[in-house]
């Protein structure tokens, strides 16, 4: 190893250290921003080191350099535009798009490496290490690319969010998976070159589409996390292809992060990961569940004035926001109401279920955007302790995660961790109708004698509450 080789390795190592420490600083909201900036500094260092390496070796052709720089410029501009323009409600789509391009880039890097080896003739002599890494990189990268594009489309609403089940889709998915894996095995066995690898990649792309299309909108937090883990793994595989430790380390960190979030989300939704992935494949999504809970009680409806009165004279109010709030873009109305109540001496906190939103932690970002201080956002356990002490729980746009039926066995949400809204002194639910949530069952909370239903759209309902509360507190 020459001196400059060692220096390059150490610079890449420093970048990797920045990634790890940067992620570590994400442990508290106080240091998180610095953590991300440290991670970005590490990335800048890694890129600068790669530039140094290119300058030292001088192996790149003039055309190659132009192509590379043009690609980097176009990509940077596109990334910058998306990052600046995106609305916080659309974060899950953007994360999906970044997953897609990351996975796609990893697969393309493997292809470029294969082309260098001369395609068909070269690959037969390549080491097993290279062909295995190339195969896995292409498979995982391609599945992640197309899967993430479909996920983004579903989240954006350009593709139906409902589980799309077509007859024969399952068999077709199996077929594409078999072709993809078979092609890669052939490449590893030295029996195929660029063409076989391309066929495998196309099959993997088709499989990614067929895998995500049938998955329902409510399962998106799990799907995004899983695709995130896949992108990380694909990048780590690209690291094996290029024998670059910084790619392996960074890819592994992301793979671990995605895996943890996948498990957390699946637990919070009381679904197994296999059930989510295979669930859409025709065995029926949870949305098809039957109404098992026998809620026969009557529903009490209130006017905005009465609800505002109840809120204004409470000591402690816990708000339970759900995706309905985000969909109606009513965070700002909610915070306006909360500020008004706080000005009147009411203590307001927010109880946030792990799957409130379309990706892990989505609701927290939406509330942060509306200037809710993060210490007021309570996680499940904390929130349940607070709900038991609350005078009023205000539920906006949340449904299944507040259903006490989850505590009993024998229904689609049995065992799902829920927010104990029914343990608050009183409950106000803002909801358009008595419609079901994703689980497709009656919410027993709504027939609880202490629950008052304010039938309205989240935005209109909150605005009415605020207007009514204003007349009370002044």
């Amino acid at each position, binding site marked *: 190893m020459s001196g400059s080789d060692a220096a390059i390795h150490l610079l890449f190592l420093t970048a990797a250290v920045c990634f790890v420490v940067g992620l570590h600083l994400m442990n508290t909201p106080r240091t998180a921003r610095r953590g991300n900036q440290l991670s970005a500094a590490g990335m800048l260092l890694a890129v600068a080191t790669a530039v140094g390496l290119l300058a030292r070796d001088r192996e790149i052709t003039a055309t190659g350099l132009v192509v590379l720089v043009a690609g980097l410029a176009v*990509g940077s501009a596109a990334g910058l535009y998306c990052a600046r323009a995106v609305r916080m409600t659309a974060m899950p789509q953007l994360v999906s798009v970044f997953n897609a391009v990351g996975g796609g880039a990893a697969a393309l890097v493997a292809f470029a490496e294969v082309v260098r080896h001369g395609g068909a003739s070269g690959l037969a002599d390549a080491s097993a290490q290279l062909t295995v890494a190339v195969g896995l990189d292409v498979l995982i990268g391609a599945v992640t690319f197309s899967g993430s594009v479909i996920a983004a489309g579903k989240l954006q609403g350009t593709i139906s969010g409902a589980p799309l089940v077509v007859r024969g889709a399952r068999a077709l998915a199996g077929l594409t998976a078999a072709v993809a894996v078979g092609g890669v095995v052939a490449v590893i066995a030295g029996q195929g070159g660029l063409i076989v690898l391309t066929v495998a990649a196309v099959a993997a792309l088709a499989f990614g589409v067929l895998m995500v299309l049938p998955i329902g909108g409510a399962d998106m937090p799990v799907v995004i996390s899983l695709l995130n883990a896949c992108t990380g793994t694909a990048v780590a595989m690209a690291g094996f292809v290029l024998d670059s430790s910084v790619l392996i380390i960074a890819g592994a960190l992301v793979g671990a992060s995605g895996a943890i979030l996948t498990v957390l989300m699946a637990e919070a939704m009381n679904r197994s990961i296999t059930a989510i992935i295979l669930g859409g494949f025709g065995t029926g999504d949870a949305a098809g569940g039957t109404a098992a809970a026998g809620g026969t009680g009557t529903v009490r409806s209130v006017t905005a004035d009465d609800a505002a009165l109840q809120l204004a004279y409470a000591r402690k109010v816990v708000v339970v926001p759900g995706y309905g709030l985000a969909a109606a873009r009513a965070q700002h109305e909610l915070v306006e109401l909360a500020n008004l109540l706080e000005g009147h001496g009411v203590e307001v906190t927010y109880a946030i279920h792990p799957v409130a939103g379309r990706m892990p932690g989505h609701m927290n970002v939406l509330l942060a955007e509306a200037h809710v201080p993060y210490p007021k956002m309570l996680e499940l356990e904390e929130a349940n302790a607070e709900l038991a002490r609350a005078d009023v729980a205000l539920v906006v746009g949340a449904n299944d995660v507040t259903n006490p039926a989850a505590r009993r066995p024998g229904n689609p949400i049995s065992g799902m961790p829920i927010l104990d809204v029914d343990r608050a002194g009183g409950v106000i639910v803002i909801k358009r109708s008595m419609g079901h949530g994703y689980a497709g069952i009656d919410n027993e909370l709504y027939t609880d004698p202490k629950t008052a239903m304010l039938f309205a759209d989240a935005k209109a309902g909150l605005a009415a509450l605020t207007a009514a509360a204003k007349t009370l507190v002044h």
Partner: protein
Amino acid sequence: MSTPLVIDITILVLSLLVGFEVISKVPATLHTPLMSGANAIHGIVVVGAMLVAPTADGPLGYVLVFFAAVFAAMNVVGGYVVTDRMLEMFRR
């Protein structure tokens, strides 16, 4: 198994363990910025695109390098910028 492969596998396994250890402590409040920040980190594939660029010497190679560079740069730049934008909003 060659020595570089053994070393690479060692790095992979240890990095996974470090990742699990560091990330399991991140509170749910920060899960979206965490995922988006991790997303930016896998933008390291931009270095992969740069490392593979000198090997391209034909039209196919150039096309592959171009798209790899576009995708990776979009991933890394967008990922960091949007994560910073989000974290800026988290206030006490």
